[in-house]
């Protein structure tokens, strides 16, 4: 023992491969004893070049590409993309299409939050809750399959409207499913709120103050869990959200319990939205025609993904292909906040605190160079990338 003055700091890398992480990210922790002193996050192990690829495809082909940015929030990506293209072209989708979009978006929110609740339980070592929640998540997955024909990539939204209608029979099934799901959700809310071992692990863990959360540009449930009422659906209503009454769920404490409770409340809220939308769906067509070529224009499109605000920027140049599509996914916005949340807590809390932002890392990889010493940053053009590729493979096959 060399005395208190000397800090015994050691580094623990979590990732890119680690059982707590479902996708690759490197979190480099500086640990002092058992307490996290500092953390550095390095995402972008899965750079897929989707933004670049959109420039080589036309607006219809890009729907399929954007649908695959994220496996869980595939619906909101398609919606925000098609919504942006509609704004570029200056067309308005028919009212019934807007309601259909809202219904499957809210179904997606439920299945995403249920998935997250299961993962959070697993990170706490509570595997029983994990299996139960995922079993009931299947209920929603089946409904999605019933309505859209798919479990993951629904392909419901297209430029100019929706691709499939929701029949009365399907609407009835959805309502019945929501009734069952609400009852199951009551059980899980009780478990999370009352179970002593769960409470011991989530109350006052990973705290974030509302001031800090806003300062670090946190979005979605992570922000709302600190008590800040901010939701794109309410603040900047898109689709049919301005016609549907709903509450923005917030929880004041800012710890992991708050994150869980906000998501649980959002699941209830989503079930209510679905019921309301099914009851008030206007009759009529579900799709309008949109021209192939879109005049030069610049728009942004936003939506509230299950993980927070999803942001798309579009620039068109008069052809059938976009000039630029920029995607900002919510996980990227939440990374600074989660690094702040982790500081000062135990090693044992790394998984649950990191999982509490519902990280979805494969959408997060971007490509830019930053030279910290010379304070420079730059990007490569496609030609420079290709040149690098040639050099790299030449070096590999030398």
């Amino acid at each position, binding site marked *: 023992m060399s005395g208190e003055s000397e800090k015994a700091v050691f580094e*623990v890398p979590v990732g890119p491969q680690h059982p707590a992480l479902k996708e690759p990210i490197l979190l480099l922790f500086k640990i002092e004893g058992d307490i996290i002193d500092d953390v550095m996050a390095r995402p972008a192990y899965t750079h897929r070049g989707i933004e670049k690829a959109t420039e080589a495809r036309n607006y219809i082909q890009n729907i399929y590409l954007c649908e695959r940015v994220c496996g869980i929030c595939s619906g909101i990506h398609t919606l925000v993309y098609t919504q942006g293209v509609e704004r570029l072209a200056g067309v308005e989708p028919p009212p019934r299409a807007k309601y259909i979009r809202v219904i499957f978006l809210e179904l997606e929110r439920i299945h995403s939050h249920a998935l997250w609740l299961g993962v959070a339980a697993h990170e706490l070592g509570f595997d029983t*809750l994990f299996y139960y929640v995922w079993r009931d998540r299947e209920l929603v997955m089946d409904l999605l399959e019933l309505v859209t024909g798919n479990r993951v990539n629904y392909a419901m939204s297209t430029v100019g409207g929706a691709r499939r209608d929701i029949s009365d029979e399907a609407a009835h099934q959805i309502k019945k499913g929501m009734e069952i799901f609400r009852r199951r959700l009551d059980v899980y809310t009780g478990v999370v709120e009352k179970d002593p071992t769960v409470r011991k692990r989530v109350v006052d863990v990973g705290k974030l103050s509302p001031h800090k959360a806003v300062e670090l540009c946190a979005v979605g449930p992570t922000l709302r869990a600190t008590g800040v009422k901010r939701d794109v659906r309410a603040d900047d209503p898109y689709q049919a959200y301005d016609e549907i009454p709903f509450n923005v769920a917030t929880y004041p404490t800012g710890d992991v319990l708050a994150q869980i409770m906000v998501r649980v409340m959002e699941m209830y809220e989503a079930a209510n939205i679905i019921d309301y939308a099914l009851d008030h769906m206007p009759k009529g067509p579900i799709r309008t025609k949109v021209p192939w070529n879109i005049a030069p224009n610049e728009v942004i499109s936003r939506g509230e993904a299950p993980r927070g605000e999803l942001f798309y920027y579009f620039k068109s140049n008069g052809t059938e292909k976009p000039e630029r599509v920029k995607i900002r996914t919510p996980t990227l916005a939440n990374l600074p906040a989660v690094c702040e949340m982790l500081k000062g807590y135990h090693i044992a809390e790394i*998984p649950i605190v990191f999982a509490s932002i519902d990280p979805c890392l494969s959408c997060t990889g971007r490509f830019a160079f930053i030279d910290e010493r010379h304070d420079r940053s730059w990007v490569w053009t496609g030609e420079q990338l290709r040149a690098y590729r040639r050099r790299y493979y030449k070096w590999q096959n030398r």
Partner: protein
Amino acid sequence: MMREALGVVELLVFPGFLFLSWLALYFEWVDRKFYAKLQYRYGPLYTGPKGFLQPFADFVKLLAKEDIVPAAVDRFLFTLTPILMLALAFYALFYVPIVPMVRNVAFGAFEGDLILVIFVLTMVGFLKFLAGWGSTNRFSAVGAVRTAFQLLGYEIPLAVVLLTAGMGAGTLNISLIAQKVASNGILASALLPALAISIVCFQAELERIPFDIPEAEQEIVAGWLTEFSGRRLALFRFATDLELTLAAALTAALFLGGPYGPAIPLIPVQVSYFLWFMFKTTVIVMVLANIRALFARLRIDQMVHFSWRHLLIAAVAEAIFIQVLLAAGVIA
């Protein structure tokens, strides 16, 4: 001559090494299957009837896998710990009455074997620490330190409640305690709180939820086990199964009378021993599995806090309670 031959059979076959190995794999199967059922899963399914042979298949598979020894590990500890842990778990089981054949008590029974078994239980925990420490891996080191902390938490309450049973029965011979508990209903009921405490302590000893802190998968990969693979991992897993067997058999013996129980008519006494033992231990393993399905994992400081604040006090209170009953002459 006949007696000696029977002794050899008792050592090697029944209830010796062969039967104990079968028992360990059987308990792993019960544990996994019941745990899975509680979680709406199937659990082991394909190997053997209802997946009964799955633990054995897993063991053989692991034996055949590549056994990697990282360059930086302490080779001596890395090789010694799995073997010693397996040997110790087997060793302790010979002092616990399972199905007494020749002497009507456990194979190695002597006055004071309870102390020896408690010592072995501590040694097993300590070996886990050494195994993790010798791995020189960051996750292993964290896991090893957590094992040591956990040992500090559960060991003393466990020793107190196990010795309480001895106090109640007036002997430190596990087999004699079991006989006394089986024949004395008042003692058996007075020991029920001790049974509950020992089950919680064994859950911690076996590193199972909510006390699976030293090998918390989501936090530190596999904790002290991280670097082990192939044969060494197979031995560790088998040793853990034997530890589960030891926990179930010891709890059954000290608090529920082990293999001794009311004679079942029309069958030989050894068969009734077997049936009673299997019944009691299977129920205990199912209770252990049920606890595993009920909770989330605690943090290490919460676990030690819980042990010293609640478990130890409960254990000491139980010991005082038994002493008072003894002094009052309630327990004959």
